[in-house]
């Protein structure tokens, strides 16, 4: 045996190497190929050599790549390593391979032959694809995370902006509340003082001997000024939403129509009044006097905004405030059906800064001495206290519209309230016994004095305990007249309940400066309760007491 036969020949190494060998001409024509490659691709040597180019055996992407990358690169640098190709086998299968190629030059330095070595890269390609997929997934996840972070910032920014807006609204509401507290408190004390002043002026007037005309006029002037002061304090109370309201079903059309004469007189000849009253207008429930005041205040402001004259339009309408609308408001306003009363002028209009402050008490754009700055704050306070809503629309140079929304009244059959007569008749007493309970001595003195003057018999007490013992001693008491707020641990309402237990059916007349307390629910009178607001005049007290004793109130 030839010992050389034990040694592998170069041909064996070439033909059965674990890689494919090809030699091609520079244009790719195959000139030699090993058996491994033929086995892979499933073709005969004679069909390839001299007939096919290497690039003909590639898939389309490989063909393009061969011409655009592989061939130029091989020509430029003399070799190309690690190119991933897909061979198209005879049966149509694709075989992933990795190609290393060397370019051999002839003696003149021209390309002569390409030696191509191919490795089967099936497993490797699978692995690469998985890696590529994993990388793409990782990139996508990173991208998603990045986007999430971006939107997070955006969402935080939106949230903060929303929060700041809410805080601003809260600040505004708190400011109005604080100013309300302050004005309410001042108005309350001021009312007490006015009650005493009014009482004492009236006393002076009644007791003034005949013939002192100058003194009588002086007293009248004092009284007139006091009345104006009382109007101011009422407005302050209205703004602070602590005025006692006497809500009644209202037909706003009737109310506006009833005001036209008053409005015409107020507006003067330069301003044309137009009223547009909606057909089928819902009814609302509010204090008719206060609504009149509100409309009058708006009309006066409108007039003053039209110094050259113009047109004032009062409109009524049915309106719906939806969720979206009320959500945008600084104050809580429930969505639903409202009766809208709007007052529009063709005046100077106002800017945004003015609009924001216009409801604040004492804010005025009028010259000193021409306005109190309380008109619109009365409107605001009254409407808010009546669970309504006010909206201003204004354009500089175009005019202003102020819309009042009052809640629709549903399911009440009682007739709409008539406006109470402005001048109650003066009526005397005839010895009926009235118990006056008031912790403020001078106020008590005024009330006692007035009632005695009217012809009543009066018992007086400074607090609840004293009042109860007086009732024990004088069961003949026919009317209780009590302040709502009393010192000594028992308020007017509790006292009234106690006395009513002993004397069922006894009429009770309350008085108060403001009413953030037991007698008034949400600033309103309980049904069947009677109240006379401070400061009350002699005449008002007389009329009220008489009607109550007669059972006609």
């Amino acid at each position, binding site marked *: 045996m030839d010992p050389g036969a034990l040694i592998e020949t170069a041909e064996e190494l070439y033909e059965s190497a674990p890689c494919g060998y090809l030699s091609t001409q520079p*244009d790719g024509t195959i000139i030699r190929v090993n058996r491994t490659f033929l086995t892979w691709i499933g073709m005969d040597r004679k069909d390839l050599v001299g007939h096919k180019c290497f690039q003909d055996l590639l898939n389309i992407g490989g063909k393009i790549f061969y011409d655009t990358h592989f061939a130029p690169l091989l020509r430029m640098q003399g070799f190309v390593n690690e190119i991933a190709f897909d061979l198209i086998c005879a049966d149509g299968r694709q075989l992933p391979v990795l190609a290393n190629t060397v370019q051999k030059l002839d003696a003149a330095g021209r390309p002569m032959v390409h030696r191509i070595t191919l490795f089967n890269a099936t497993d490797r390609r699978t692995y690469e694809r998985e890696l590529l997929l994993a990388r793409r997934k990782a990139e996508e996840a990173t991208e998603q995370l990045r986007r999430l972070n971006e939107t997070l910032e955006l969402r935080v920014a939106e949230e903060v902006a929303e929060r700041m807006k809410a805080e601003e609204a809260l600040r505004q509401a708190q400011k109005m509340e604080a100013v309300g507290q302050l004005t309410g408190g001042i108005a309350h004390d001021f009312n007490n003082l006015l009650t005493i002043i009014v009482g004492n002026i009236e006393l002076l007037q009644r007791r003034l001997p005949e013939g002192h005309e100058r003194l009588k006029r002086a007293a009248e002037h004092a009284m007139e000024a006091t009345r104006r002061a009382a109007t101011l304090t009422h407005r302050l109370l209205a703004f602070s939403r602590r005025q006692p309201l006497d809500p009644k079903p209202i037909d706003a059309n009737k109310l506006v129509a009833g005001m036209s004469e008053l409005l015409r007189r107020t507006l003067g000849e330069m301003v044309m009044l137009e009223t547009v009253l909606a057909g089928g207008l819902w009814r609302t429930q509010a204090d008719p006097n206060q609504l009149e005041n509100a409309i009058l205040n708006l009309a006066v402001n409108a007039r003053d905004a039209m110094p050259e004259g113009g047109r004032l339009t009062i409109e009524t309408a049915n309106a719906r405030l939806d969720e979206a609308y009320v959500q945008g408001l600084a104050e809580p306003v429930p969505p639903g059906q409202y009766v809208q009363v709007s007052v529009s002028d063709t005046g100077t209009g106002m800017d945004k800064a003015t609009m924001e402050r216009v409801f604040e008490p004492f804010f005025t754009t009028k010259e000193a001495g021409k306005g109190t700055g309380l008109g619109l704050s009365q409107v605001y306070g009254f409407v808010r206290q009546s669970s309504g809503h006010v909206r201003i629309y204004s354009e500089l140079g175009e005019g202003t519209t102020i819309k009042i929304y009052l809640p629709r009244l549903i399911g009440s059959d009682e007739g709409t309230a008539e406006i109470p007569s402005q001048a109650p008749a003066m009526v005397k007493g005839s010895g009926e016994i009235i118990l006056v309970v008031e912790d403020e001595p001078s106020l008590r003195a005024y009330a006692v004095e007035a009632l005695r003057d009217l012809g009543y018999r009066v018992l007086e007490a400074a607090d609840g305990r004293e009042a109860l013992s007086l009732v024990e001693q004088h069961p003949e008491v026919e009317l209780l007249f009590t302040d709502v707020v009393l010192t000594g641990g028992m308020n007017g309402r509790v006292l009234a309940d106690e006395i009513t237990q002993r004397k069922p059916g006894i009429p009770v007349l309350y008085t108060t400066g403001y009413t953030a307390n037991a007698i008034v629910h949400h600033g309103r009178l309980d049904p069947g309760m009677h109240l006379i607001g401070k400061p009350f005049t002699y005449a008002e007290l007389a009329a009220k007491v008489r009607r109550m004793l007669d059972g006609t109130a």
Partner: protein
Amino acid sequence: MLFAHGYGCDQNMWRFITPAFEARYRIVLFDHVGHGQSDAASFDRVRYGALDGYADDVLAICRELDLKDVIFVGHSVSAMIGLLAAIREPERFDRLVLIGPSPRYINDGEYVGGFKQEDIEGLLDFLDSNHLGWSSTMAPVIMGTPDRPELGEELTNSFCRTDPEIAKHFARVTFLSDNRTDLPKVRTKALILQCSQDAIAPEAVGRYIHQNLPGSQFVLMRATGHCPNLSAPEETIAAMEAFLRDPASTKAVA
């Protein structure tokens, strides 16, 4: 003489051509963005979403170097890029040498471009296989050793490096382009160098351009493949010289 490389290469592909002209012409070479030594950070998907973006770059080079009477030599897709630039600013260009040009690679009715739409998808898929770093022809190592770029340098090939994402984008823009309607707008004298058996730009495509490009010359080369400037530089140079010697050397009038 301004040379623009085609898809898949960089300015190195002109290394056998430029020596023949260096003595008589000012030679300007550049790499398209994302290729060779260019600044890949300047790439912008939208700006380079069509060949016009690349034509803008060619004109920017002309302006920057204050080039006039330019002989533009464009290979493959850069032939079209040069055409677009010459339409835009014809006064800058004296001649166009178009090597293996194609106004549209995908067949369209009567028109034979040589490829089907899905072939191009096949190419993009193929590029993925070659952009994985360890088997890449062009890209530096993407995965595994970003902190050792020199490893990438060793493993990959030293010419025609391309940013893989830009390469894919350029491939898509190139192979999906359609500039057939631009051909009649060209006023610059042009030479079409067509290889035999060019799989990327078949002979029919070269003849189509010749028919639609006013006053163009058409030369069918003996060279095969797509890069005669590399595989047959002598023949390429000779054809160019003949074209540049042509007495009707003033701008063609349509």
